[in-house]
């Protein structure tokens, strides 16, 4: 009997509640439905890649229940993936062009190190969304967790946008180096929470954060300046909000009806004076 390491080709059978088998697939022209119920992520993602290679343009994943890495490393544009259920960690990680829409919640790491593409989550999401993200758009309808938008960065024409419809926990936009991070505080589960936690924009040295409402200086890192969003700022923000509202089925005018706070770094070189050369 030949043993195979689990990471290479897992044996068929039930391990951790998942089956290591190819999922059943229904095709309808270039639209495909993949039944993810109980299927391990490797087989599920293999099936997604195979279907894209075979020309599928719309892929619906039904029965998703925490499978990781959905759309991880996909480098195609013009393909839409619909997720029915709760998407697992690192969805759209290293994504480059693909559109993903989740009808449910998502776990941690949505859009982690994403280069381009568009992710819409009609629910809540977890921690470290958009970590190191350098392009594309991530829209979350509800609340988000800790460390959202850390290290977001812009590069040439790639400017990432991450909009969170609910409230956020600590370290929102920490070490942010580029792009736009928006926090609306609207579709929240917990009205009693402040709109953002502590250390907002700590170490921030690029990009901009817009918060619908106000934050206290003690919530923010020492490196940022806090002002009310001006007309020019809103001109930059408005098209993003309109796009978000369309994706979520919300009213852009209602979102824009309240003043926004703008948080931006005071220096691109926050640590320039920290060191002395020997």
């Amino acid at each position, binding site marked *: 009997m030949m043993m195979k390491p689990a*990471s290479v080709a897992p044996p068929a059978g039930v391990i951790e509640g998942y089956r290591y088998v190819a999922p059943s697939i229904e095709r309808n022209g270039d639209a495909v439905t993949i039944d993810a119920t109980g299927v391990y992520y490797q087989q599920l993602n293999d099936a997604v890649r195979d279907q894209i290679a075979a020309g599928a343009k719309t892929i619906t994943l039904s029965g998703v229940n925490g499978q990781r890495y959905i759309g991880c*490393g996909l480098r195609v544009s013009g393909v839409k993936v619909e997720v029915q259920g709760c998407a697992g*960690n690192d969805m759209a990680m*290293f994504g480059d062009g693909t559109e993903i829409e989740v009808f449910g919640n998502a776990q941690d790491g949505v859009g982690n190190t994403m280069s381009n593409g568009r992710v819409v989550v009609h629910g809540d999401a977890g921690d470290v969304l958009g970590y*190191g993200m350098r392009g594309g758009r991530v829209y979350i309808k509800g609340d988000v967790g800790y460390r959202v938008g850390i290290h977001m960065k812009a590069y040439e024409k790639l400017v990432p946008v991450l909009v969170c419809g609910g409230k956020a926990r600590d370290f929102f936009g920490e070490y942010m180096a*580029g792009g736009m991070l928006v926090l609306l505080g609207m579709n929240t589960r917990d009205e009693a929470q402040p709109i953002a936690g502590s250390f907002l924009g700590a170490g921030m040295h690029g990009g901009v954060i817009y918060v619908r409402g106000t934050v206290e200086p003690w919530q923010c890192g020492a490196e940022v300046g806090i002002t009310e969003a001006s007309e020019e700022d809103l001109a930059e923000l408005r098209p993003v909000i309109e796009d978000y509202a369309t994706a979520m089925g919300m009213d852009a005018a209602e979102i824009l009806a309240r003043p926004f706070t703008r948080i931006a770094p005071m220096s691109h070189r926050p*640590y320039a004076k920290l060191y002395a050369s020997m």
Partner: protein
Amino acid sequence: MQQTFVQPEFRVKIDYDKCHKCGRCVQQCGWGVYDFNERPIPHDEKCRACHRCVTYCPAHCITIEKNTLAFRDNDNWSTDARKAVWKQAETGGVLLTSMGNPRPYERIFDKLVLDACQVTNPSIDPLREPMELRTYLGRKSDSVAVEPNGTGGFKLAGSTGLERNVKLDTPIIFAPMSYGSVSLNVHRSLAMAAERCGILMNTGEGGLHEDLYPYQDNVIVQVASGRFGVSPEYLQRGAAIEIKIGQGAKPGIGGHLPGEKIDREVSSTRMIPQGSDAISPAPHHDIYSIEDLRQLIYALKEASGYKTVGVKIAAVHNVAAIASGIVRAGADYIYLDGFKGGTGAAPQVIRDHIGIPIEIALAAVDQRLRDEGIRNQTSIIAAGSIRSSADAAKAIALGADVVAIGTATLLALGCHLCQSCHTGKCSWGITTQKPELTRRIDPEWGAERLTNLIHAWSHELQEILGALGVNAVESLRGSRERLRSVGLDEQTCRILGVKPAGL
């Protein structure tokens, strides 16, 4: 303005009788030591003793001496300690420095000696016998099966995962040094030499410049906390992917490339804005546990079609338990970096006082993984001041599959260990982005010198294997019985798994 208390470390002396007044020294110096007024006039306080001017002076009329200014003797307060206090009282800054730890910690490699064959077990003549230096980086299967190959012989059956191992023609690779910390011409030299030697270079955390795409089969691409230059294409191009957690010279410390070094090329390779600081803090913000590390390892595998994924950590206390977790998280190799390893920039206090020697870490990790029966599931790369083929052989005998060299490669390209990489003014054109300096490294010339170095060390390794009476480097791996210590204490010998000489 307040006069500094810190006097120049060196004195630049010019023999004006011999001097051609040609101004070559003025052009060559990246530190701005020289003014020219009918003849070159040095400003001692700017000199780093990098010897660029000395090397290129056509009249050989420049000498650089240590400034022997007398300080009152004090065994407790060294001159360096006094200077550091003065500097900090003047600036209020964290003292920043570069290259490896220069302090006189015990050099364990120098207290280990290798065995040799004598009468009963003959040595092997490496000039006539084949000596196998080839080795493979990556996870080895727990067991293998064979099947008939159709011509009367056998071949490996099915998918064992072994086909994903990365082949190395010699067990020496180039250590990660990012584009940004070193120049693009240094990266080109490393990539060309890696291809010629059948080994690997490593991008470090600065991304992969497109000029290096032709060498992609000989490149490890690194993923660090800043995720600089990391895109799906970057992951596809590497021969292997490395998650950088720690670095031997600065365990627990992140990277920080100052904004003035982020020019257009560095910006487009790192995929970050020009002129902004490139900050990569020590923690990956998506890794707070071994389970999180496993998640990133498998994300990288999913995104790359299940390439070899390794994890680089600094040698620290309790490193064996950490390594065990990393193997169980699915890493195909562990890169262990000892505390004497080099760096482009680190706080001096961290570089000189944090971490443990590679010899100890390596022996502890290899033993722990053997005890747990998982040593085959990973390869070990050892680094952190591998100065010679002897250090390499001793590291392999202590349990390494492969050694990585960084400082030695820069020395091959002209580095004189002036320990000022962080200033970005390297006169040798190595750790700088100034075009007038970077063009001093011709990639073809650099590749030839690096190829020579790897070939020389490989020949020496073959000689060592021959003397030991083994004909494959894999037979030396973890073979501690072939090492003895001279002058190491009993506890250290026990951790190293090495007997004292005479036993």
